[in-house]
């Protein structure tokens, strides 16, 4: 048993924290909420230069051959710094799905460009049912000659507005088992008939409605197997949920630290507010939630990283962290008083994102249901 990150991961974290504290200040986070693209070229280039984009891509595809845990360590720091932009979608949703499911040609084509930061990607799963279940997938891709023609609407697709390629989970065959007959298709973001409208969310992040109207892609756009897209999609969802949990742990810890610092400084009734048992116990409860979240999240990331069956650990982690992070934010607000509630204060940046992250790749109840299914099996 070894519950610590290894030295390389530690170093990666340290250098990431260092860089991000300089180059990703909260002012940038705020600016990017207003920005139409939602990220800064400069920060993106710095991340590319440091090799973050290719961190979890094998050397032969131009990456640094790191594993999922390395990436997780980095994501924790990005979650802490609230890094805006399409890193998560390009690397976790796009790159790792290609690496997992695509044929070698496609890998050789896409992965080096991802590693060089030249290609942005995302994954389109959710539709109007608003969940991550196979039976909700109704976007159709019907064969016509040597092409697929895609028709339908995806919702909540992260960063589709800037993505060069969108991996689309589409229904290519119908049958009684909703997990069958789904195919992953690689669709250029600029293809005819694709129209992308960013949602307006409470975190001002960039999730998009993507409408496919008679969109044509060649057979070569199939990622992996025809009609066999759901198993890699499930794996992609597990990776995404585990990665999101680690990102949230980074945020939760920042919120706790910010709160403790404030309570040490802030004086009311002639003494630091942090001396009152009421807020001390709030902080203790936050610490308990952060501690539990950290190990639940990393256990899930580790399982994914090792290629072990991870369904149970991932669902456990996402079920726990989704709620725990929101509890942490609520208590932080209660400890901060009115100031934490202002747009000027950094706390609310975390709080609003915690709500979005709660829902991403399944909320607590979704994952508790998956868990109940694995337990019964």
């Amino acid at each position, binding site marked *: 048993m070894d519950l610590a990150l290894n030295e390389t991961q530690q170093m990666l974290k340290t250098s990431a924290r260092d860089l991000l504290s300089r180059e990703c200040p909260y002012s940038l986070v705020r600016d990017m909420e207003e920005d139409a693209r939602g990220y800064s070229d400069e920060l993106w280039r710095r991340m590319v230069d440091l090799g973050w984009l290719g961190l979890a891509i094998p050397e032969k595809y131009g990456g640094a051959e790191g594993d999922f845990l390395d990436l997780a360590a980095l994501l924790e720091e990005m979650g802490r710094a609230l890094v805006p932009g399409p890193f998560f979608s390009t690397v976790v949703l796009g790159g790792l799905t290609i690496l997992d499911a695509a044929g070698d040609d496609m890998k050789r084509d896409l992965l080096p460009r991802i590693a060089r930061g030249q290609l942005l990607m995302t994954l389109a799963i*959710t539709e*109007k*049912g*608003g*969940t991550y279940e196979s039976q909700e997938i109704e976007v159709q891709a019907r064969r016509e000659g040597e092409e697929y023609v895609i028709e339908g609407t995806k*919702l*909540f697709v992260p960063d589709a507005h800037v993505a060069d390629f969108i991996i689309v989970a589409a229904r290519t065959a119908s049958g009684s088992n909703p997990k069958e007959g789904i195919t992953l298709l690689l669709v250029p973001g600029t293809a005819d008939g694709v129209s992308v409208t960013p*949602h*307006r*969310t*409470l*975190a001002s992040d960039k999730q998009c*409605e993507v409408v496919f109207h008679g969109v044509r892609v060649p057979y070569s756009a199939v990622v992996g197997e025809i009609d066999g897209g759901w198993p890699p999609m499930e794996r992609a969802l597990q990776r995404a949920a585990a990665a999101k949990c680690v990102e949230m742990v980074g945020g939760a810890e920042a919120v706790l630290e910010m709160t403790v610092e404030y309570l040490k400084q802030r*004086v*009311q*009734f*002639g003494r630091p507010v942090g001396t*009152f*048992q*009421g*807020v001390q116990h709030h902080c203790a409860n936050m610490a308990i939630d952060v501690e539990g979240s950290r190990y639940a999240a990393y256990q899930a990331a580790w399982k994914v990283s090792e290629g072990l069956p991870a369904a149970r650990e991932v669902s456990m982690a996402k079920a726990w962290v989704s709620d725990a992070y*929101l509890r942490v934010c*609520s208590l932080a*607000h*209660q400890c901060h*008083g*009115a100031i*934490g*509630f*202002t*747009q*000027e*204060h950094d706390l*609310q940046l975390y*709080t*609003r994102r915690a*709500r*979005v992250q709660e*829902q991403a790749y399944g*909320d*607590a*109840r*979704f994952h508790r*249901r998956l868990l109940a299914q694995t337990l019964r099996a």
Partner: protein
Amino acid sequence: MDFRFSQAEEGFRQELLDFLRRELPSQWEGPVGSTEGNDWDLTLQMRGKLAQKGWLTMHWPKDYGGQQASPLLSLIFNEEMSYHRAPGRDIFGARMLGPTLMIYGSEEQKRKFLPPVAKGEVQWCQGYSEPEAGSDLASLSTRAEDMGDYFLVNGSKMWTSLAHRADWMMLLARTDPEAPKHRGISFLLVDMRSPGVEVRPIVNMAGSHEFNQVFFDNVQVPRENLVAEKDRGWYVAVTLLDFERSGIDNAASSRRLLDDLSEFLWEAQERGFHRASEGWVEDLLAERYVETEVARLIAYRVAWMQSQGLVPNKEASVSKVFGSETFQRVADTGLKILGLYGQLTWEDQWAPLHGRFQDAWRHGFSNTIAAGTSEIQRNIIASRGLGLPRG
């Protein structure tokens, strides 16, 4: 024992409902998003109409433009206004300044300041909190120097709701820096158009501008605007604070959110939003429903005590804590049920209920902080209510 309202009270409720149906924009479901400019016009319009009906200050004595309405009528008024998300009420002028001046004001002050409130012609705000004086209000440091004919005010106030709309402020300022902290504070009425007053907006995490910071730079406040004796302002303010804690607004707003959500879910379920029919949803909705009803009963109890001439104390804090926390739970529950859709704001065409739940959730953080944090309220319940010794 009788949990019913009297016929007269029910009659008033009906009259109010008819009024709201008539006077609010058709299909009114409350303000949406940050459509603040329009809302303020509507607020002023509605305020004028409420004043005409005499409802704006219905709980005031008749001498001052009120109807001497019982606390139960006020309760019904606030309940329906909150439930219908109707703009136009006047918390600061009608619910705080009025009762305070009636106790502590001079005859001239009453004659000058009360009628405009009753007519809905003036906006007041409350200048209490400061950057360094939040829960510990008495540690405020805004200075009011006694210059004989006037007080010279310097300093700044924080979290001043509606200061940017206000004509007048109830200001707490320190007139004796040497005295023990509760003893050197005075209560002044400040014309917001006085030279040296500057209002800077504070935008909250829901993206709306409700709070302000107000700066005073050598502002002159005429002596006749001192309420009660100099240095006795803390005691004036404390009286006022008790008027601030009302649970019925939270209970009614919570109930409205739940009703909206239930209605939305029945429809959404039919349209294929399967989540609405999952097993936990019904139980969770019912749990929240019970809480809003309990919150309502607790608020009724406070108003009923007042109607009996009793002074609610612990009871008002119980109502405030439970009401505000219920509101937060309802907003949270809504977002949990709405799932991915819950995060969408009113500007998104896919947003359920115009994004009202995420908006309520964001606003809700202030409910357990403003007008006395939940921690302070629990201290009051424990010490003033249960008689536990102070720590």
